[in-house]
């Protein structure tokens, strides 16, 4: 096995797994929503409707790819590509098992945060390039929301970094061997989870595409495959934040009896299911409530968490 082929196989595996998972997630989410909301969900295409996503993909692939004539063409095309690319790239540093990551960067956490903040561009550019009022308002809301919650996301993870003493995601997992960080960092976990939900722009934080006021928000003018990119990227984003939650707070691949990768998959799927449950049960807040929640509750909480963690680590050292 030479230096090129090894990573290449990993990359193909990771890309394939992530994309399949994202596609499958669409079906999983709709079935789960059906379950929790006491209705069927997709059950026609294939056994249990399992092939629903495939059918959706085929349909979308053959749809006309409409470019609005008033749109800023280049930007309009690039925007969905950005979000797709950067969310996929974040997976490069996520460790699926011991030593199983495309790149075990020593600044892995910073890489993930950097990539996830880049996806703001996609939303902002897409909304502006559409030349549509709904798109613009939706994208502005999305940008305001995403940059706000990015701050809390970064702050909430500082406690974990402090405890683990490293940015390397594998090291962070290893540091949880005795005790998962979800207990000592429970405040951090709470803040991170809320911020992560807001970053993925999902219910209850789906104001950017609040369909009863903004049609579809920043992707109102998108159709065909470019729309699918925004759509799939959202599900990849859900997978990403679930995987991150697992790595940062739920002990990553650690667990008894089973294979580490299996543990990682089980935990990630559990978090995903929880996110879907939230979607099934919570209403959407107003925009002022959304910002107030972040700036007036999460920010002080995250700062206090950081100070307390620092004090505890200091006390332990002495």
């Amino acid at each position: 096995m030479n230096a090129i082929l090894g990573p290449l196989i990993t990359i193909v595996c990771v890309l394939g797994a992530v994309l399949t998972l994202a596609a499958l997630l669409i079906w999983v989410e709709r079935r789960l929503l059906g379950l929790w909301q006491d209705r069927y969900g997709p059950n026609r295409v294939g056994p249990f409707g399992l092939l629903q996503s495939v059918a959706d993909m085929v349909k979308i692939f053959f749809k006309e790819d409409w470019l609005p004539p008033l749109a800023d063409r280049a930007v309009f095309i690039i925007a969905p590509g950005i979000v797709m690319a950067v969310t996929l790239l974040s997976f490069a540093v996520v460790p699926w098992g011991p030593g199983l990551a495309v790149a075990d960067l020593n600044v892995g956490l910073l890489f993930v945060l950097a990539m996830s903040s880049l996806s703001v561009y996609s939303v902002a550019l897409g909304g502006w390039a559409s030349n549509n009022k709904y798109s613009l308002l939706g994208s502005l809301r999305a940008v305001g929301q995403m940059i706000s919650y990015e701050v809390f996301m970064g702050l909430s993870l500082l406690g974990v970094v402090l405890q683990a003493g490293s940015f390397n995601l594998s090291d962070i997992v290893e540091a949880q061997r005795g005790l998962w960080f979800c207990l000592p960092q429970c405040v951090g976990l709470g803040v991170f989870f809320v911020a992560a939900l807001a970053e993925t722009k999902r219910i209850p934080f789906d104001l950017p595409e609040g369909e009863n006021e903004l049609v579809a928000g920043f992707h109102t003018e998108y159709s065909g495959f470019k729309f699918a990119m925004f759509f799939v990227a959202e599900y990849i984003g859900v997978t990403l934040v679930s995987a991150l939650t697992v790595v940062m707070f739920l002990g990553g691949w650690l667990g008894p009896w089973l294979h580490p990768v299996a543990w990682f998959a089980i935990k990630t799927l559990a978090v995903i299911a929880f996110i879907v449950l939230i979607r099934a049960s919570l209403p959407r807040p107003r925009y002022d409530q959304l910002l107030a929640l972040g700036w007036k509750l999460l920010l002080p909480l995250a700062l206090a968490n950081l100070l307390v963690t620092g004090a505890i680590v200091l006390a332990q050292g002495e």
Partner: protein
Amino acid sequence: MTDVLGIVMFVVGGVLFVLVSLTVGRLFRPRRPGQLKGEIYECGEPTVGKGQVQFDLRFYVVAMLFVIFDVEIALLYPWAQVFRQFPKAAFWDLAFFVGLLLVGYAFAWRYGYLDWTRPRAGGQADDDAQTPEQER
């Protein structure tokens, strides 16, 4: 070194995937432009004015807050990394830094810069407070 190589290959792979999937479909897709399709979508109503409207300045305040606090996080990350090397100095530095930050934070909170709908600042007249709640 292999890590960097892995990242680079992953970047190339990701970007290629996006490019290929954006372009390959062109071979199969229909293309039927039309007069009505070209209009800006406003739920069937005739469009009014430009699509790229001037938007609310309040988003600017959010952006300012973001810049302030994100820079702070950029400072805190290296700090968290080296914390264990000098815990005592690092902790008091942090306490001082966060304390300083909280002064500004309290100021911003007191005068409504954290609110989407601004109250009248300090009980005095404020032009911004009269704007309607939703974006113009």
